[in-house]
């Protein structure tokens, strides 16, 4: 049973309760990881609505398959794997995305909110947008696995061993993917400059 304040319970305890059918315990896990989940989905999609849908879908899949979670990895690693697989599937379904249009959609927002950064000058904004567009274009050209490794490392700060666990691959393979991704990005950005 989860302690009187579920928010203070550890992941393991919450998972045990959720596996027994206590949905509220799983909702605490959702609250705990929703921002991280959203951010990684956003890294893959660069679209707010898509990122929201993908991260929510990952939570739903985790909830449905929770009884099969064998605790060999932590809940977060297991959940990350579900999310990354969904993101990779999304990339396969969508193919190469028009990053320019996605950047526009993100920057204009959906009317609900704005990016919480101090307003830059028009020049800075233009330069920032141009750089963002170039980076988006360069990232879009990476093969899905290289891109996934790069995003998990560069954007999420996961260690090589964590990425290897999430992606079910050898550490050497992950290092090779990261190396190729960084070199390809560097080359593309140099070409675009």
């Amino acid at each position, binding site marked *: 049973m989860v302690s009187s304040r579920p928010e203070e319970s550890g992941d393991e305890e919450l998972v045990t309760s959720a596996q027994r059918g206590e*949905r509220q315990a*799983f*909702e605490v896990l*959702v*609250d705990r990881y*929703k*921002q991280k989940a*959203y*951010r990684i989905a*956003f*890294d893959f999609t*660069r679209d*707010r609505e898509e*990122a*929201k849908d993908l991260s*929510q879908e990952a*939570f*739903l899949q985790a*909830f*449905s398959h929770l009884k099969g979670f064998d605790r060999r990895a932590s809940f977060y690693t297991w959940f990350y794997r579900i999310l990354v697989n969904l993101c990779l599937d999304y990339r396969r379904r969508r193919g190469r995305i028009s990053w320019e249009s996605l950047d526009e959609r*993100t920057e204009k927002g959906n009317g*609900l*909110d*704005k*990016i*919480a*950064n101090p307003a830059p000058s028009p020049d800075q904004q233009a330069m920032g947008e141009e*750089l*963002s567009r170039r*980076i*988006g274009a*360069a*990232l879009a050209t990476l093969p899905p696995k290289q891109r996934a490794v790069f995003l998990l*490392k*560069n*954007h999420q700060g996961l*260690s*090589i061993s964590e990425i290897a666990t999430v992606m079910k691959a050898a550490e050497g393979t992950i*290092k*090779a993917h*990261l*190396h190729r991704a*960084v*070199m390809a*990005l*560097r080359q593309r*950005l140099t070409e675009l400059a």
Partner: protein
Amino acid sequence: MAERHDPLRGACKDFEQDLILYYYQDCAGIERRRVESHLVSCASCRRFLEELQSLLPATVKSDEPSPAFWQSYSREIRARLVTADEKSRWWDAISFPFRPWPVPAVATALVLAVALTLTFTKGRWPFHQTPPQERELVEMASVTDNLDFFNSFDFLDSMDLLEAVEGKEMQKSETSHQPL
């Protein structure tokens, strides 16, 4: 290790991967010391590392949605979880008899029931009633088998007879060859 410098890539080939891991602080112990000692003597690799330091952080596109977004997010995911939960409970109720454990349990119970029935009602159940004509045939077949059996005895008798005759002949020949 040999330093093969590629002007296009900017860093020594053998150190490229380790420099990237070094940048991410994901290289420890011997590898880290190896990279650090190399950086002291190699200007190209130092430039490569500086380039990574300016390029890679710029690739991170942050998005910080407002609290309103997160409220809407939480409402939506809760509603979706309730639906999924209700669906799974309904499905659990429907699929209960087909779950992995009830199937062998029911099969075992059935086998036990049949075994107990057979044990306690032994002899009361006319399982195999042979029609009268078939019964006669079966009896005839057993008589035929018996005849074959006795025939084999006759054969053995004749063997004994032969042996007896041979024995007598042998005795005769022995007595005729005895020296006078």
